[in-house]
């Protein structure tokens, strides 16, 4: 973010999370994992670990972000919206790195294959800047 680089595999890979460059990634991911599950004790443990690592305000903000994205997934899947075209191109490389295409619901699974991944990787920096300039929101908005 803001010129810093992070390993996006941290989202799906525990080892990568520890080496991602994101501060307290391990505690954040453990809490996020627990927050979407049903294990009350696991959630309490992960919450306490995050509290000790980052403080109470960070626990509240992390819980809020996790809650927000439990809503966004259901809007996307429940309405059958496709990926926005700029987002599809920008995210092509990230999707490949994380093997996210394997997770795609029927309605958002992108077509185009290899050429889109190549075009996406080439155009990604330009499109990111263009989106930023036009203030186009994405999934979490």
């Amino acid at each position: 973010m803001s010129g810093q680089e992070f390993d996006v595999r941290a989202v799906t890979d525990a080892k990568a999370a520890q080496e991602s460059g994101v501060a307290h990634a391990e505690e954040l991911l453990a809490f996020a994992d627990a927050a979407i599950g049903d294990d009350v004790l696991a959630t309490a443990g992960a919450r306490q670990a995050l509290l000790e690592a980052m403080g109470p305000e960070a626990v509240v903000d992390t819980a809020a972000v996790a809650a927000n994205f439990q809503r966004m997934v259901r809007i996307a899947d429940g309405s059958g919206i496709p990926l926005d075209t700029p987002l599809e191109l920008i995210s092509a490389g990230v999707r490949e790195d994380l093997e996210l295409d394997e997770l795609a619901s029927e309605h958002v699974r992108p077509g185009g294959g290899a050429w889109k991944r190549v075009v996406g990787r080439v155009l990604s920096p330009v499109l990111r800047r263009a989106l930023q300039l036009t203030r186009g929101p994405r999934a979490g908005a």
Partner: protein
Amino acid sequence: MSAPFDYADAGIPVRSDLADAYRDVWARIARPGGFFTGAERIAIVEEARRARSCALCRERKEALSPESVGRQHDAHPRLSVSAVEAIHRITTDPGRLSRSWFERTTGDELSVPQYVELLGVLVASISIDAFHRAMGFTLEPLPEPVAGEPDGYQATGARMESAYVPMLPANGARGAEADLWDGSRTANVVRAMTLIPDSVRMLKRLSAAQYLQMHEVANPAATGGRAIDRAQIELVAGRVSALSECFY
């Protein structure tokens, strides 16, 4: 009886804008909407909570295909079987929803505008309950319904594209819907529920408190003044989305 979403005794400081947003959305849910009464909208929240312990949903979730489990849910006293089916599937197994499921579920019992309104109420309540569960808080009691009839309002400019439901076009935030977004473009996930504009208003209200204001999202330096930085915010967002099998 304390006010809704009173976190004074929570044992941890909760931002007042979160409580304000939750109170506002809870009050919106209790009011009559376009196609459901207040009591029916509250029943949607009640049914969503019930879905988390539904044996049929668990059986379907474990099946190779949810359609291979033949039985159906019981109707709620205020909701049709189709509405209950939509609530349970969206709550417990959203990653395997499909166009054919949508077409089977909507129809005479659950019209498409009703479906969009149901989706808006459902996802708002899910995210509020999710915050409470993550924080170890008791779930907020359901609100008292506000009397009155649905007004039948739907956005007249909504059109079918490739989604399951009609949506306003990217330049369609005008007239009565001018407050939904600024300018002539926005993301599909914002347009998704525009057939029922109040669903988008609840989405905006919650997202601003739980994540970021809509205009901040594309700015990678924006943090909304949170105690976690943007990389940490996006790490959590990405993780939850990936674990929920959310591709979008």
